[in-house]
């Protein structure tokens, strides 16, 4: 007879990828679901509404009108300022990520239309070195903001990132300041910036442009925060509640505007922009 319940340890940051094959196991409810059904459902579990992590290209397909995307700065790559190497030289690591993702770095930026509204869009890809921000991500996000100012288009950025990219040292850290400064200019110009947070958004990305959206939207259950849950647990030596750093937790604490299901995301962004982009009131 058990006197006390077994302590449930909080599931760590699960890396859920949809494996090849007909069936997939949901990372949240552990149900086995038909793969095609998940795909049809915008990579959301039909049983529990768990939002699977998706690539930047998939996100693009879900968010912008077909054939409207024109990529910007696709050729920018890092020059490895620290000549960093761990088990692999950083340049090799980049090359591998480039090959597996088809992206030049962890963000895809460009011009597109969302329900007919012209936008500048940036989408981070977690599968590219954890969506980490180094010089390239920082530069592309900054240029996206500057292009938004030049074209007078709203800016939409979808984040998914573990934070700053260690392999570029202080160059990475300074990208936080650079991107935040660019967002500052955007605000002064009165151009709307919608920041969409997806699972996970942490560290140097959340502590810069991601939390600076005029409107901040998060996908359900996404983990979002400054410090990762493991770091916090080690620091405070306590177990964290299961809802801690989830999108709903942030909403409750007044840190974001809304939690929106993936299937409603495009329509929500379009609604916001339609309302904000009407002719300004004239005196």
């Amino acid at each position: 007879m058990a006197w006390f319940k077994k302590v449930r340890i909080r599931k760590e940051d699960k890396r859920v990828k949809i494996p090849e094959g007909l069936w997939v196991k949901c990372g949240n409810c552990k149900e086995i679901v038909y793969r095609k059904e998940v795909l049809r459902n915008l990579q959301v579990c039909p049983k529990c509404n768990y939002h699977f992590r998706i690539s930047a290209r998939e996100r693009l397909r879900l968010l912008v009108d077909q054939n409207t995307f024109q990529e910007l700065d696709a050729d920018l790559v890092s020059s490895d300022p620290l000549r960093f190497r761990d088990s692999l030289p950083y340049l090799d690591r980049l090359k591998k990520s480039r090959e597996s993702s088809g992206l030049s770095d962890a963000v895809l930026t460009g011009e597109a239309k969302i329900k007919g509204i012209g936008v500048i869009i940036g989408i981070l890809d977690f599968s590219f070195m954890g969506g980490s921000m180094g010089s390239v991500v920082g530069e592309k996000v900054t240029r996206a903001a500057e292009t938004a100012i030049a074209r007078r288009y709203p800016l939409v950025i979808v984040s998914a990132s573990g934070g700053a990219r260690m392999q570029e040292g202080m160059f990475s850290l300074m990208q936080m300041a650079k991107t935040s400064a660019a967002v500052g200019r955007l605000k002064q110009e009165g151009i709307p910036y919608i920041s969409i947070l997806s699972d996970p958004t942490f560290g140097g990305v959340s502590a810069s442009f991601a939390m600076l959206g005029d409107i901040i939207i998060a996908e359900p259950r996404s983990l979002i925060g400054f410090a990762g849950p493991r770091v916090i647990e080690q620091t405070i030596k306590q177990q964290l509640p299961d809802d801690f750093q989830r999108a709903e937790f942030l909403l409750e604490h007044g840190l974001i505007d809304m939690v929106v299901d993936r299937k409603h995301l495009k329509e929500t962004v379009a609604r916001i922009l339609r309302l904000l982009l009407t002719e300004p009131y004239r005196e």
Partner: protein
Amino acid sequence: MKYYLDFEKPLQEIDLRIEELRRLSNGKNSALDTELSSLQSRAEKLLQEIFSNITPWQRTLVARHPDRPYTLDYIGMLTDDFVELHGDRHFGDDRAVVGGFGSIDGRTFFIIGHQKGRGTRERIERNFGQPHPEGYRKALRLMKMAEQFRKPVLTFIDTPGAYPGIGAEERGQSEAIARNLMEMSLLRTPIISVVIGEGGSGGALGLSVSDRLYMLENAIYSVISPEGCAAILWKKDGEVGQDEYTRAAEALKLTARDLLGLGIIDGMIPEPPGGAHRAPEETAENMKREILKAVDELSGLPPERLVESRYQKLRRIGALSSQGESP
């Protein structure tokens, strides 16, 4: 009792003997005095020898040295008068960040910095120099006030990082730092930052977006601590320790000299041999010269030009090439 780092241990012996001789001689015994002065010059030589060859990891330990002067120590040495202000007007007063205004050489500065504590009690009180969101918000409130009164801002950086805790997350640690980065980039008054000890990642950056960024010679500034970096890279291969920290500190290029070479900082402020804690006044003097020079250069600029050049300064930072011509 002075604190000696491991690699400083050879010095400890000589220092102890110097102390002893000093007590014995008391200025009356010329034979002892001769030995004393020869010991002193030996100690100085040894100090220089040790410090001319320290590794980035050893420098990290100097940057965190418990005897190293902290923000309030420098404020005490630099200002004739200082008024400390408290609170973010939203939630509380973060003791890990201090701020207020004071006069340096007849000029009023708003001075803000991370504050570490000395001794167990104060260390806990100061949360080891790790701010909560209210610390960043207090800092921003004071910077806005500096803008309002057209006074330059001086910030001191000395933190292991922003605090990773439940309350910090609930109150928006990310948002607080992000907002400071943005608002500091737009602030219409000069900002001068000096990394005096540890520049720990985003928690350090949240007070150091500036027109001039300096580092003390033995300060460090890094995207991640050497311990954190080592754990990520090598923990899977077993326990990590001094060797891995040494490698990580080397790889991260976190010293003032490295960062000056990489164009991340604008200047390195020299410290006396053995580090700032061996001659705090001298360090403060060196710092004061740079601060006054910088503020002279910056005060002449109209606010628009100042803000524009700060933006361009940030804008340039990045290590990029176009695919095809990549190395």
